[in-house]
């Protein structure tokens, strides 16, 4: 039993069909508990007041926005090395989800920044690198949809994803160099003494788990759709041949 068995679309469809309802239910459970807990049953922060609650959307979305790109990178590498179609389709399926998470992080950040920093937007390194990440997602999705031949599209977007990852990292450190930030440092690191207080920390963990599950669920659904679309296309082609 190895992961590579799921390179077979049939096996992938069967297993994902069985797993999907559970994953979706678990994601919904985590998100509902986490968000309700976070929004209604945590104390106000003594300086930030109730705006601190945006953390329950902002932080998980931002984490998943980056992790989605990493997942696309891994899937692209698998496609380039082992030519598994499911992998290429999963990368394609993850892109719009990652794009949406990036947008959620940016917008919730703006809502929080308006009362706290007194501005919707600042050219802070973290904010700027997220905007750049957003552009990378846009380019990646645009390239997928512009190329007709599906194998060529998978190849080219994989190359773009690899090169883009290098440049996204470079940009991340370049903007650090370019401007000092307003954005606070990480407050969830595992290796630090001072972290966010436990009252906020536990519901946040539940929310993060919910976003991870949500991401996996959405990617699975979208990958299944892509596989079905591919099958349909082949059926139509075969019909036209006869």
């Amino acid at each position, binding site marked *: 039993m190895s992961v590579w068995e799921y390179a077979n679309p049939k096996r992938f469809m069967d297993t994902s069909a069985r797993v999907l309802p559970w994953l979706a239910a678990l994601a919904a459970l985590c998100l509902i508990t986490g968000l309700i807990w976070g929004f209604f049953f945590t104390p106000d922060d003594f300086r930030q007041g109730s705006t601190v609650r945006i953390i329950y959307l902002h932080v998980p979305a931002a984490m998943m926005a980056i992790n989605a790109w990493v997942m696309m990178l891994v899937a692209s590498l698998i496609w380039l090395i082992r030519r598994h179609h499911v992998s290429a389709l999963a990368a394609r399926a993850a892109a719009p989800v990652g794009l949406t998470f990036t947008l959620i992080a940016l917008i919730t950040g703006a809502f929080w920044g308006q009362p706290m920093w007194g501005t919707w937007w600042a050219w802070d390194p973290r904010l700027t690198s997220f905007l750049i990440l957003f*552009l990378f997602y846009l380019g990646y999705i645009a390239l997928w949809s*512009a190329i007709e031949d599906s194998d060529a599209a998978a190849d080219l977007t994989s*190359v773009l994803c690899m090169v883009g990852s290098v*440049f996204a990292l470079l*940009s991340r450190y*370049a903007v650090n160099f*370019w401007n000092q930030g307003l954005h606070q440092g990480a407050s969830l690191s595992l290796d630090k003494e001072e972290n966010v207080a436990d009252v906020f920390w536990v519901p946040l963990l539940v929310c993060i788990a919910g976003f991870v599950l949500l991401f996996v669920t959405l990617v699975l659904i979208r990958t299944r759709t892509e596989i079905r679309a591919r099958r349909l296309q082949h059926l139509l082609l075969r019909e036209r041949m006869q």
Partner: protein
Amino acid sequence: MIALFLRDLRLAFRAGGGFGLALAFFLLVAVLVPLGVGPKAATLALIAPGILWVGAMLSCLLTLDRLFATDFEDGSLDLLATAPIPMEGVVLAKAAAHWVTTGLPLALLAPVLGILLQLPGPAFGWLTLSLLIGTPALSMIGAFGAALTVGIKRGGLLLSLLVLPLYVPTLIFGAEVVQRAGQGAPLQSPLLLLAGITAGALALLPFAAAMAIRVNLR
């Protein structure tokens, strides 16, 4: 490779090759920005490094879409693929030709536009130097983008969407060099980082671009 490089140069310099188009565009940017932000010398001096770098970047973009596309359409790219030089060499030669016809003249023209934009005195030499160091990276990254979109009809817009985010680090370090030169601040670190990006792009991107072209020729 040298023959290919010279052929691309000849094609670019002849009528309709697009040489001069980038320069004219760069000039227009430098003329239009003061019209937009007002003629105050202090304001212009403040934004001049950024405007000049962004202008150079956009001008580089103008001629990128024909870097491989014309050869792809008339079939010479297929011939080049079967030629004894590797595709990586083809990409490098074409990027070099692109740089000689856009990056190099842009770097030489930039100080003149610096006068128009009230660029502070000590920054002039560094502006040319930073453009000389940075524009090869712009041409190389652009060649990668052009290789990705070569098979797409009217891929020009998509090309800019793909390439401009990749230009971010180059732009940041390049404009930072000129900015610091204008203020008399130490500029060694951005200059070295800019050179590092160029060196890295020249070393690695030909492989990615060649792979993209091979996929497109399949």
